């Protein structure tokens, strides 16, 4: 005869806040991502460009070390300006690769065996579900992009003369806004593809293909029409133009910059539309 009898009992404690509930999705997805050692190693590698840039900026202001390394002194002194011109690309590319690796399995895994039906039977909405998944990518990409960029800006401002930070505030704003635009575009595209393509490898290919095909299609249209109309489809050029515009530099597209903004906004809205269509607790068969 059992000492204890198993009897079902309801839980009557206080529930956690409804507002932060989406973060449960984020937390579990992040834990899943970092469960892979290969991914962890790759993620650490992605910090290299930012770490090298931080080191270089520090060295360029450290005269004691520069005097010992006189041969490369001139080059090192020039470094901050050169770094701020190129760092965005160095940071954006690893961020893109991380999004390509992580995003495809984020939603596809939940859709594979109808897990969404029980996930969405919980007191969370579809919007919160998407927000939870989007936050996974934002949490992963932020330490690779705008966080080190602002840290670098802060370091340079503190090491350079007093007015450098104020006079170059636009650089900090451009890094912050530019990286957020980049993160949102690739994250939303990644999630939309994940909600559409079930197999992760295919989905990764699809994300790359979207950028490649949009670039090729844009180029062909430009050639055929002998205009810059194709740039409306050219996602990489739209991102670059918007970012260059934020820095106040010449843009690669001949179109007014608001058209490049429009391209990115349309891409984001399309991704949200796909997510809205695909993310259902159950199929609606009429």
């Amino acid at each position, binding site marked *: 005869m059992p000492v*204890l*009898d198993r*009897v079902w009992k*309801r*839980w009557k404690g206080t529930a956690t806040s409804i507002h932060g509930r989406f973060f449960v*999705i984020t937390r579990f997805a992040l834990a899943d991502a970092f469960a892979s050692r290969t991914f962890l190693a790759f993620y650490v590698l992605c910090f290299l460009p930012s770490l090298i840039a931080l080191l270089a900026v520090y060295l360029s202001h450290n005269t004691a070390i520069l005097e010992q390394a006189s041969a490369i002194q001139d080059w090192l002194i020039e470094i901050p300006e050169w770094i701020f011109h190129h760092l965005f690309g160095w940071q954006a590319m690893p961020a893109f690769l991380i999004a390509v690796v992580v995003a495809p399995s984020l939603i596809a895994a939940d859709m594979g065996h109808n897990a969404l039906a*029980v996930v969405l*039977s919980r007191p969370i909405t579809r919007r919160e579900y998407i927000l939870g998944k989007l936050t996974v990518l934002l949490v992963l990409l932020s330490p690779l992009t705008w966080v080190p960029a602002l840290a670098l800006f802060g370091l340079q401002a503190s090491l350079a003369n007093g007015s450098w930070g104020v006079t170059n505030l636009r650089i900090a704003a451009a890094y912050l806004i530019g990286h957020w635009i980049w993160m949102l575009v690739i994250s939303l595209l990644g999630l939309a593809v994940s909600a559409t393509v079930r197999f992760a490898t295919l989905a990764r290919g699809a994300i790359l293909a979207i950028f490649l095909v949009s670039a090729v299609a844009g180029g062909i249209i430009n050639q055929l029409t002998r205009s810059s109309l194709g740039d409306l489809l050219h996602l990489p050029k739209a991102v670059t133009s918007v970012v260059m515009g934020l820095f106040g530099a010449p843009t690669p597209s001949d179109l007014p910059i608001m058209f490049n903004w429009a391209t990115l906004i349309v891409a984001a809205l399309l991704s949200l539309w796909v997510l809205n269509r695909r993310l259902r*607790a159950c199929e609606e068969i*009429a």
Partner: protein
Amino acid sequence: MMVTSTDRSPAPLGISEQVPVIELQDLCVHLGNRLILNQLRGSLKGNIVGLLGPNGAGKTTLLRTLLGFYSAGSGDARVLGHSLRSEGRDIRALVGYMPEDDAHIAGMTAIRWVRFLGELSGLPSDTALERGHEALGYVGLGEARYRKVGTFSTGMKQLVKLAQALVHGPRLLLLDEPTNGLDPAARARFLELVTEVGARGETRILISSHLLGDVERVCDEVVILKAGILVATCDLRTDPDGKQPFVELELSTFSREFIDNIEAQGCGIVIRAKTRIQVELPTGLEIRDLFRAALSCGIGLRRVNLRRDSLQDVFLRAMEDNNASS
């Protein structure tokens, strides 16, 4: 959850005394241009309510609508007092749902999956882990809780679905065809679990099924749907109309006179075969009156069986009545 055997709840109330768990208020649901649920009206009060109906009757659609997956075209429903139209999130916080199809993330272990859903329901992280272990132990998957759900057999997947539906201690469990794919032993055990959960009266249960035997075994109230219309409700414990008594007679020889005689006394008659008839006795008429009628007509009664309708009879009658009325 694990308590000593002395910790028992008082016996559940009778159905008529209970607060309705679900009130349907002319609920209509359209999918595309098709009307799937047509002005459902009624109130479900049982501890364990069976939702019966043939394929395509709208059982699953009703459950999904109660969870807010489909929106109501018109009308409303109140689940545990909350309006479907304005308090969907509150309803989902109180409900545990076990869908008909597979519903899991194949690469997750059972404990992680159940914990994840517990946290989504509002359990603090450590409580979700603790209750996840308890829920899996309760359904009999304690030994397998660190295995990936994708490696489970069909029966084990059904049990994981039950565990995830129970983990947050819902006030209402919605079970959609829960015994599908289970072998007889697993089915019996599953129904035992469901009965046990419902018996305490803390968690009410709505089971959608087309397996009448399962429903009859565990439910105390039944709702029958056909083509999106609520055609019958039946209290399996007390409702005399739902499960009407009748007498099966086998006559020594067919006699029109005998049939006319008892029909004149108010009996409802169904002729099953030449010498076998089914007689519904009106109030006040007893079996001895049938013997008297047989004697006066000069025939013998070879067999007399007093029976009540089985759930299958109730179900078939509801289907026939609906056919006739439509």
